[in-house]
């Protein structure tokens, strides 16, 4: 891996305090193509936890360099809060708090209507009930005394979206947190292309019965809000896009973050990857990010605790003490890594030399045997000398022999 380096960003906050935000970039030379701004500082959630994670997620896509701007505290003077939206390709809203000044609101409306990108993350759609244009950007919102005057309820039923403008009632609530399935309702949208139709999201809140103007709204995915868990018994929108003038908004209700502990909803590869793609689409109107191998499956969660796939070094370090019965996550990470980097060329050659170094190191026998199995599928002649050494050792001889046999035997029709 390339050496990481620290790039300090200096941001002036309203109060004049200098906030140092560190930016961990994997590639020191290449500049990320797009600029993103995260707006935070007031929220009924732990924004101090979520905003740095959002920053990592965006940076880890290798598409964005990210600034964070922190608003004044609640009830403080907002008059100096004037982010320069137009410096950015996408503005990510992790903000649910006091009203912005008329000047700042107008600047934001102009930024979006003239083609700016926006990501509305989780409780951002709780914010600004009284700001009509903002609600047009998020499409649907909740809480803040929203009711039938704010717009229809929308849910999916029998193959179509139901737009319910007649039923009165408050907009926005949720049942108990749980892991739940997300179901694609638009499989051709660039953000959704190639994703499983149904995938398991990690433990999260599920916003239910949101309401809003819902103009120019495309609902990409829904989730079943189960009444047994205090939900609405409806298929509720969870991923959406909205257009506002020339601007594009990606709206995710996922990613609840509260307290100091880990946030499983934000570690979910489904949350991370749809956020990355959503931000790319909001910024550019296109999506280039390929679906990761370990995207959650129909009924299987998948997490990136580092908010990115692990490096080979990290995977091998995690694998060092593997014994049967331990978690197989590290084994699966290794398998996925090898597959992704198998190119019968230089990329795989580097992977294989790392694997061979591991085989000659001090890792557990079971970890080595697992790597021998992988080499039995992907290994090349270059692996043979090390495998032959392992074949001489009692505890690795069988798996080494299996790898040697597969590498050296051409399958024929005999």
């Amino acid at each position, binding site marked *: 891996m390339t050496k990481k380096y620290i790039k300090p960003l200096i941001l002036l906050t309203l109060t004049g305090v200098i906030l140092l935000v560190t930016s961990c970039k994997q590639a020191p030379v290449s500049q990320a193509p797009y600029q993103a701004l995260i707006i935070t500082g007031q929220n009924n959630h732990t924004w101090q936890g979520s905003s740095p994670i959002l920053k990592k997620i965006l940076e880890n896509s290798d598409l964005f360099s990210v600034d964070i701007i922190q608003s004044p505290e609640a009830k403080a003077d907002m008059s100096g809060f004037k982010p320069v939206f137009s410096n950015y390709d996408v503005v990510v809203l992790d903000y649910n708090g006091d009203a912005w000044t008329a000047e700042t609101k107008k600047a934001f409306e102009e930024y979006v209507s003239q083609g700016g990108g926006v990501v509305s993350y989780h409780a951002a759609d709780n914010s600004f009930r009284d700001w009509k244009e903002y609600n047009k950007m998020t499409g649907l919102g909740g809480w803040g005394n929203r009711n039938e005057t704010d717009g229809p309820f929308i849910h999916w039923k029998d193959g179509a979206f139901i737009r319910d403008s007649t039923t009165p009632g408050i907009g926005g609530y949720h049942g108990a947190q749980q892991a739940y399935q997300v179901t694609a309702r638009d499989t051709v949208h660039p953000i959704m292309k190639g994703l499983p139709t149904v995938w398991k999201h990690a433990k999260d809140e599920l916003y239910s019965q949101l309401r809003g103007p819902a103009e120019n709204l495309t609902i990409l995915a829904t989730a079943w809000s189960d009444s047994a868990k205090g939900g609405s018994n409806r298929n509720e929108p969870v991923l959406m896009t909205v257009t506002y003038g020339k601007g594009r908004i990606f709206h995710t209700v996922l990613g609840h973050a509260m307290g100091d502990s880990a946030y499983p909803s934000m570690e979910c590869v489904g949350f991370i990857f749809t956020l990355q793609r959503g931000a790319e689409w909001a910024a550019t109107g296109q999506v280039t990010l390929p679906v990761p191998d370990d995207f959650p499956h129909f009924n299987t969660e998948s997490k990136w605790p580092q908010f990115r796939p692990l490096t080979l070094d990290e995977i091998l370090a995690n694998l060092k003490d593997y014994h049967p019965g331990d978690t197989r*996550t590290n084994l699966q990470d290794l398998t*996925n890594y090898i597959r992704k980097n198998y190119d019968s060329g230089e990329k795989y050659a580097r992977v294989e030399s790392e694997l061979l170094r591991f085989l000659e190191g001090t890792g557990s026998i079971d970890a080595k045997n697992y790597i021998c199995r992988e080499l039995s*599928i992907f290994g090349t002649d270059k692996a043979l000398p090390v495998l032959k050494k392992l074949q001489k050792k009692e505890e690795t001889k069988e798996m080494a022999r299996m790898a040697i046999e597969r590498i050296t035997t051409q*399958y024929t029709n005999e």
Partner: protein
Amino acid sequence: MKHKTYTEMSEPKRIGRRIFVRKVAVGTGAAMALPYIIPSSAMGRDGKVAPSDRIVMGLIGAGSQGTGDMHNFMSKPEVQMVAACDVDKTHRDAIKAAIDGKYGTSDARTYSDYREFLANEKPDAVILALPDQWHAIIAIACANAKLDIYGEKPLSRTIWEGKKIVEAVEKNGVIWQTGSWQRSEAHFHRACELVINGRIGKVRFVEVGLPNGNPATISHPVQPVPEGLDWDMWLGPAPSVPYRGVCHWDWRWILDYSGGQLTDWAGHHIDIAHWGLGLERTGPVEVSGSGVFPREGIFDVPVEYSLHATYANELVMYFANERQLPHGMGVCWYGDNGWIHVDRGNRLFASDPKILEEKIGDNETRLYVSNDHFQNLLDCVRSRKETITPCQVAHRSISTALLGEIAMLTGRKIQWNPDTQEIINDPVASRLLRRPFRSPWKLEGN
């Protein structure tokens, strides 16, 4: 245990002889009809079938499936069960008690090693109900011993092993029935005849729902091998590992022995899908898809899988764990004029119920009829005709699933030549067509 020698078994009281079977080879050569000694019990208390007309059978692999199969055969008056083989003494004791109990005797013979079974026993037919890693070695040894075979599905653990079984069965001219018993159920047969005769029009897509995998996350610490279990022999050609309590039944969740629910059930629902489409003796040209492998515990077979197989006629089969499919378990063919869905429990549905009333005329394609899967083998042992699920057909259902397994394990789209049975231009994926055996195990003749 002490094994009876052939001489001991040839005591004068053991009269009768092996049923006269003309083993006219399908391929080459004709097998001898060997004289055989039937134990005294064969005189038969019910006396319905003369001893000389009975089909003498043995069992290799006396776990739950093998025991069930044996009882099904033993319920036929024409069958004489004489011996069983298992690496676990608990199984041997139970199976001996079952056979002796059935005949009211005490002379059922048991073996712990199939080689001793084959050296001492010369039954007409044998039931094979083994963990998959053993299928090819023992099936080929039995075929070479000229025994007719009722073999449990899936046919083999790898495609290469399946090919070798087919070759041995053809070379020796033995009769093979696969445990794909759904073929002998009327509603599966009916569904397939409706589909193959175009009652839903041209079929372009078929969904096959197989059971969901359930990863067990309980710990499996190394533990003493239970008394009476020959663990090394149970493993056979699979890698040597310490005993962790994963043996009978739970072997199905470890890739060294099985491909999990996918390969377990391919011989049922993929087989039925093939049957209804006339694809039972060929295979796909491309297989791709993905699986989810457990992240906890020691089991490593996929717990979710989602695979597509494309056939030369551009038909696509989607096979996946059933929770991902609209019709759930079973087979659903989609034709230009409707769909038909069939599953166990006499479940047969169509887009329009009138489709299910359709008559199939005598001039149309009529599929093989069997209303009793076990009787079908016995009938074919006598007639020397092909069973309803010969190994050539079973080989094609499991091959499709195994290509899916290779696609999942390599993360690659597999191009397949169903005629030469080779993966095209992919030496890495081709490695998984066979599996190195632990020394000293190998297939007879290879």
